[in-house]
């Protein structure tokens, strides 16, 4: 099954390089990649426009898919998404602050967003942990939702007073891969790489935690350590992806459900499957966004919801769908 997902992802990457305002044949793309001819327009399109964007989509998709699976596992809640740790709300608040401080370019937001995501999730984890040991699934989810709502209300009060900020912010918050150059991908790549490794390391412990904390402890798991690793992975993955592309939380919410119907609930297979599915889905949504309103484009976040959600509903309704956690 993993092999099929890899094949799907490869197809998505190829399409992402080939499709756009200027359609390229797969042969042209191949030549531009293996034997770039500096004079040909195809080389410029592939290397300068579509390659950075595809790499970014690949990274963000892998990150959000894996982060979603981790988050649903740690909260044992099918409604959890990476944003539940306060990541989207923290990043949004920090971006609005950044706009207030004078950042106007998409690339200028990235460190604000990352710092905001980091601080918000540390606060959520700290409050959810309380005085006695690590957080429970319920306290983690509730603390996350409360912190998110609090930060969102601060964000909104700034935006209500300042239409100029709203004008910049509404294009960031919708979530998109466009307009980000290759430095953005390079900046977030190390965080996502570390996050993916932590996620895979966390998988066996997550399986044990699914049986309840007491059982997990009896099985020899160090519960608090496992929670810390999991949350750190989610913060790195989702924080970096949100910083780069804006909040695309929905991907992290649905992809684990899709992956669960394919590989089942074992986190050792679920996490890689969710990562691969996330990347494929994000790239395909991005490609579709370039096609439907060509030569302009529809923001990836909107495409994802408009096309991904009906697919998700079909899946939930189907016989194999709604595999419980």
């Amino acid at each position: 099954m993993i092999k099929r997902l890899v094949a799907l992802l490869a197809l998505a990457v190829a399409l992402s390089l080939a499709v756009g305002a200027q359609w390229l044949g797969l042969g042209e793309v191949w030549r531009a990649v293996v034997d770039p001819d500096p004079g040909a327009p195809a080389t410029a399109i592939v290397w300068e426009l579509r390659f950075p964007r595809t790499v970014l989509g690949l990274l963000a998709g892998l990150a959000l898919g894996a982060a979603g699976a981790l988050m649903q596992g740690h909260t044992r809640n099918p409604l959890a998404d990476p944003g539940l740790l306060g990541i989207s709300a923290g990043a949004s608040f920090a971006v609005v602050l950044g706009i207030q401080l004078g950042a106007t370019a998409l690339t200028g937001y990235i460190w604000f967003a990352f710092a905001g995501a980091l601080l918000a999730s540390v606060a959520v984890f700290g409050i959810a942990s309380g005085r006695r040991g690590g957080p429970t699934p319920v306290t983690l989810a509730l603390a996350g939702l409360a912190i998110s709502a609090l930060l969102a209300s601060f964000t909104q009060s700034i935006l209500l007073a300042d239409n100029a900020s709203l004008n910049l912010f509404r294009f960031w918050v919708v979530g998109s891969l466009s307009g980000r150059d290759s430095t953005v991908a390079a900046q977030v790549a190390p965080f996502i790489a570390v996050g993916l490794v932590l996620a895979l390391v966390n998988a066996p412990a997550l399986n044990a935690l699914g049986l309840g904390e007491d059982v997990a402890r009896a099985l020899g798991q160090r519960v608090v350590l496992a929670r810390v690793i999991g949350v750190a992975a989610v913060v790195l993955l989702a924080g970096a992806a949100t910083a780069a592309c804006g909040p695309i939380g929905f991907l992290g919410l649905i992809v684990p459900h899709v992956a669960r119907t394919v590989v089942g609930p074992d986190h050792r297979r679920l996490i890689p499957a969710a990562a691969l599915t996330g990347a494929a889905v994000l790239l395909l949504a991005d490609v579709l966004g370039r096609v439907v309103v060509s030569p302009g484009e529809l923001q990836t976040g909107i495409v994802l919801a408009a096309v991904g959600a009906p697919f998700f509903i079909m899946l939930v309704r189907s016989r194999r769908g709604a595999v419980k956690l």
Partner: protein
Amino acid sequence: MTLLQVHVGRLSGRVALRPIAVGVVGLALTVAVAVFSIGHGSFGIAPGNVVSTLLGGGTAAQKLIVLDLRLPRILTALLVGAALAVSGALTQTFARNPLASPDVLGVTHGASLGAVAVIVLGGGAAIGAVPLAALAGALVAAALVYVLAWRRGVDGYRLVLVGIGVGEVVTAGVSWFLVRAEIVDAARATIWLNGSVAGADWAQVRPLALGLAVLLPLAVATSFTLQALQFDDDVSKALGVRLQSARLAVVLTAVALAAAAVAAAGPIEFVAFVVPQIALRLCGGSRPPLVVSAILGALLVTAADLAARSVLPARELPVGLLTAMVGAPYLLWLLTRTNRRTSA
């Protein structure tokens, strides 16, 4: 939990004291905040005069200010708070999930799409049609969620997942409208999306009050089924609950309550999530209590509205933002204190 043994003739039962205490204190606070809030404003009125005006006395000027200008707004806040909190308590119980709120039934998202569409497409002229559009959007979206989740009956888990899916499509519609709108319309839509009870008049209060007079007793009447729906489906059936009709009744009540509230005040959705959780933590027990939730919901929205009018009188913040600023820290504080004591 402290239980009181009660004997009345041949009947006897046990009454939990804590929810009653919380309810009474909450009610007293709500009345106090409401009276203070009516007296508070650019033309201040002492609480004693507010009460006497409400009871039929007062000067002509006081009557105008209290009865025509401020009372509708305060009543809207009270009713909206109670409706959202009960709707949230119902949703969280039947979905068996503390993260569920009427959003997952499609209500708030549908209402937002209806309202934003009217604001963006109709411009300034259509502002009067916004509550109606919100109500229509809420009901259509909720019906869509229920129909799509139907597959030889509706299962709570599937309903919630389908609700998320529908909510996302609808939210994408809202974002799309916001991105393509003129910035003036986008700003106006943002104000509505944050929820506000400013400018409420009697024409808005009457239908809301009428709706709640029917729906709140209905919600309390579902209490027994709710108690049973907390368990898994097989246990509920064994307890004699007709699953599908019980679930439909609970969902319908929750949707209608939330839709009425959202049409009146915009999506103050955080109330529906936070109040049942606060009520549960204050009262103890295994599921959010309905009556106490209603009281605390009314208290939260009234207090937030008062704060909205006092903190920055020149630039009134929407009450939806204040409910989050007041409610979220309180829930966080409760979480750090009562960590691990409650499970739902």
